[in-house]
């Protein structure tokens, strides 16, 4: 199905969606941060621009998430899913790949009910094509959303990738196929980042990166944990209990493998006891271990860790340095 939406159509589509879903749309916040926020029909949408600041997967797997309440008699109460499911609009190709990655992890048996309470029934709406900063081109999705809006000049090609998506789009006008062909053509030239990751991954799998490299990178880490917290495929959490007299609230909170206590044992011993080991793990996990386990990188190249790392040692920066030092043509 290919439809074409002008601005009025887009507004109509969003209004329709917001009747049935808790719709989140890209907006510019007070300081210019571009992020998903609740759709009101009034606030201005940010239909082109930089990558969304908060990773959209945080709606399904938030920084703090209540798991259950236990009372003094031992009875357990689990939070109820919200009345309306979520709909997230404005996701780029990497955001969608990140959610796909998390879906696979949390849906694998035993399925993670806390994640699914937010995720089940949610609608994902991609925004690709000429929707980047200054209308630059953003890669098309892999079809891993319900609706994909491909920005073209002053309108959007709308693709329904699921039956829910198709249903929502059914009453809109047909789209221009030649425009879609042009967009697909543009999409073919966007593999540079994954080339870099591919080379870096190869170096790790072949064990060609010496410990010294990790020590030097780790010396620059100020242990902010940001690289993990912004990563759309990071799924580690720890559990926090808060006792409020009658009720103990159990929540999970995002964790970070860059922290010493992440792997520290009760005795104080830590198998990942140095910054260098932890830094190596952060990169190795995504570029080698995940490849072995899932057959693909754990990095979707969203760029968030490179933006949030205060000292410039996010994934792409490290991969680049690794390839520069040990890549093709190096001894």
């Amino acid at each position, binding site marked *: 199905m290919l439809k074409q939406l002008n601005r009025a159509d887009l507004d109509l589509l969003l209004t329709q969606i917001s009747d049935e879903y808790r719709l989140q749309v890209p907006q510019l916040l007070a*300081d210019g*941060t571009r992020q998903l926020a*609740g759709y009101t029909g009034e606030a201005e949408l940010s239909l082109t621009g*930089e990558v969304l600041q*908060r990773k959209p997967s945080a709606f399904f797997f938030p*920084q703090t998430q209540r798991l259950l309440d236990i009372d003094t008699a031992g009875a357990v109460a689990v939070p109820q899913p919200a009345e309306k499911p979520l709909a997230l609009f404005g996701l780029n190709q990497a955001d969608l790949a990140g959610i796909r990655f998390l879906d696979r992890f949390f849906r694998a048996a035993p399925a993670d009910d806390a994640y699914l309470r937010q995720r089940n029934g949610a609608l994902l709406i991609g925004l690709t094509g000429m929707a980047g900063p200054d209308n630059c081109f953003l890669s098309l999705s892999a079809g891993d959303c319900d609706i994909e809006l491909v920005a073209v000049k002053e309108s959007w090609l709308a693709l329904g990738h699921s039956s829910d998506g198709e249903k929502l789009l059914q009453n809109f006008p047909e789209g221009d196929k030649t425009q879609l062909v042009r967009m697909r053509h543009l999409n073919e030239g966007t593999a540079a980042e994954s080339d870099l990751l591919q080379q870096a991954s190869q170096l790790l799998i072949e064990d060609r990166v010496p410990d010294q490299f990790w020590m030097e990178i780790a010396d*620059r880490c*100020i242990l902010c944990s940001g690289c993990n917290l912004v990563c759309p495929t990071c799924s580690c959490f720890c559990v926090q209990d808060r006792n409020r007299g009658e009720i103990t609230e159990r929540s999970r909170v995002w964790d970070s493998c860059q922290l010493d206590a992440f792997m520290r044992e009760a005795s104080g011993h830590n198998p990942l006891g140095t910054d260098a080991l932890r830094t190596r793990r952060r990169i190795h996990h995504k570029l080698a271990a995940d490849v072995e386990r899932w057959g693909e990188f754990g990095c979707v190249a969203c760029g968030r860790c490179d933006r*949030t790392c205060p000292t410039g040692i996010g994934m792409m920066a490290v991969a680049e340095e690794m390839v520069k030092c040990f890549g093709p043509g190096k001894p």
Partner: protein
Amino acid sequence: MNATLTTCPYCGTGCNFYLLSDDRGRLSGVEPAAKHPVSRGQLCIKGWNAHAFVDHPKRLKTPLIRKNGKLQPTDWQTALDLLHDKLSEIAAKEGPDSLMFLSSAKVSNEENYLLMKLARAGYGTNNIDHCARLCHSSTVTGLVETLGSGAMTNSLSCFEETELVFVIGSNTTEQHPLIGSRILQAVQRGAKLLVADSRKIRLSRHADLHLRHQNGSDVALLNGMMWQILQDGLENRAFIAQRTENFSALQHSLKAFTPDYVARITGLQPGQIIAAARQFATSDRAMIVYAMGITQHSHGVDNVRAISNLALLTGNLGRPGTGINPLRGQNNVQGACDMGALPDVYSGYQKVSDPQIREKFSTAWSVKLPETPGRMSTHAIEAAAGGELHGMLVLGENPVISDANQALVRQALGKLEFLAVIDIFLTETAQLADLVLPAACYAERDGTFTSTERRVQRGRKVIEPPGDARADWQILVALLHRCGLKNDYTAPAEIMHEIASLTPSYGGIDYSRLEGDGLQWPCPDPAHPGSPILHLEECARGKGHFSPVDYRPPGELPDAEYPLLLNTGRTAFHWHTGSMTRRSHLLDREERHAFVEVNPEDAITYQISERQQLKISSRRGSIYAATRVTDRVPSGQIFIPFHFAEAAANVLTNNLLDPESGIPEFKVCAVRIEPC
């Protein structure tokens, strides 16, 4: 999910982030502000976890009154009446100067202003101070004398333009992480880095030169560098001639500080001192960055003078990429000073002793004001211990854990006739109080904070405070009302109008102008764009004043009985006395227990192994903590962070004070250790 922009409650860097809250009014997380000039989409670990303590079950929710020795819930009316009655009664009986008011670098500018007004205009005493006494009082005293302004001279953006950063006594990547990261980035792009710190801090791994001088030998080191600069003729003669005074006195004072002499005092090699001097003086744009390693000494003010002398000698002032950059610790310690929560000045550093200034405030507040400057907080503790103080109101501070020599602090607070504490948790200090008032935390009230680069920024209310807790400014307004003073402020923005009208450097600050990046003071009028760099054409006082200093050793050095030097400070994961960070899950998990860093050589001498419990004793007391064997500390020195109440480093520290700034010597005292 709602997102509200606000200012980080932890360090003075001034990062901004969005607090995320759900529809039930609970915080669920933090997201850095992408376009804010300081945070730029980045935060440190404390910032990323700044939401976590807010909802803690131990938050204070009702006023508490001591009855039959126990703190028991009461209502606001009773609590406020009692507070006012007690303070008035003591003032009437023992004189207003038998009261002490401790303000806080964690509350807003507006709240600091109101408390200083309450102390002065309401209860008639200049006895008001706050924890800057323990951190940068030496800076304020020293830099006011040499430059005319006690604040960081340059801006954080200057790290992008500098050629050399000289970090002395600042563990920047741990204590001001997002400033530390700017230094690391400067190094990445090719800037030089000199680090002077006895500990192997993270920055030292990137330094061109790491000087591990003895704690407390900073004056000798800095004088030695200046001796060498003069020797090599590398001083900036044009700058000295045009912009400074008293140069010949400086020259004269440096005569003895040859590299050999300085090497003997500092424990460095003469060549290291010479190299540091040359690298520093041959850079066209050099920034000096310092913090507690400089200020927390019985000669803290002298240390600051020496730093100022070095900057003036080399002309590193009043230009981008240069400057004297004291990093202020708390998110609003700059503001608390600016607002006059100090015993000798009103807001904007306007002197209490100046009759015209007094007249101005007296007219504005319609009340007669006390003339003599008040007591410093550290002197107040001594006075209370000596029975000279009778009542104290503590707003958001925890001196039992944060002040030197805990036994003395406990004795002092115990002797008071009346102690009231306003706080968000029942801190160790609040546990001793006769009255405890529950306050709103940063996420639950509006107000402004002033960061280390003098950036005045908004803190915004995101959620309601728990139970009956109230914003500090509302509590203070209720007391102003009882004192018969103006009390019709309905929001902090109105308080800022009053501040701006009385404070020249804040004259142009108004909430309507603070929506974007904030404003850096001085900002004297509504059209003024703010001041990223101070002392541009001339210093605030006119000429930059060379203030020669001689080396004085610390008050208590190791000896046969107490053979090791104790250095104290903080870790990257906790904030001061831990009342917030130890209640934040990830931060608490990272550093849950008190520890003591011991050099591997000393570990062999004392036959101590990793994680072994140690008894650490000084002349003032003993604590127990687990050993961490590490070469971060040099042999002969141990380091203990002061966050942990159960093993409080300040049981050990020496309350020997700098004679001018009243700061205790937190960085040096003598201890012994015993394995157990």
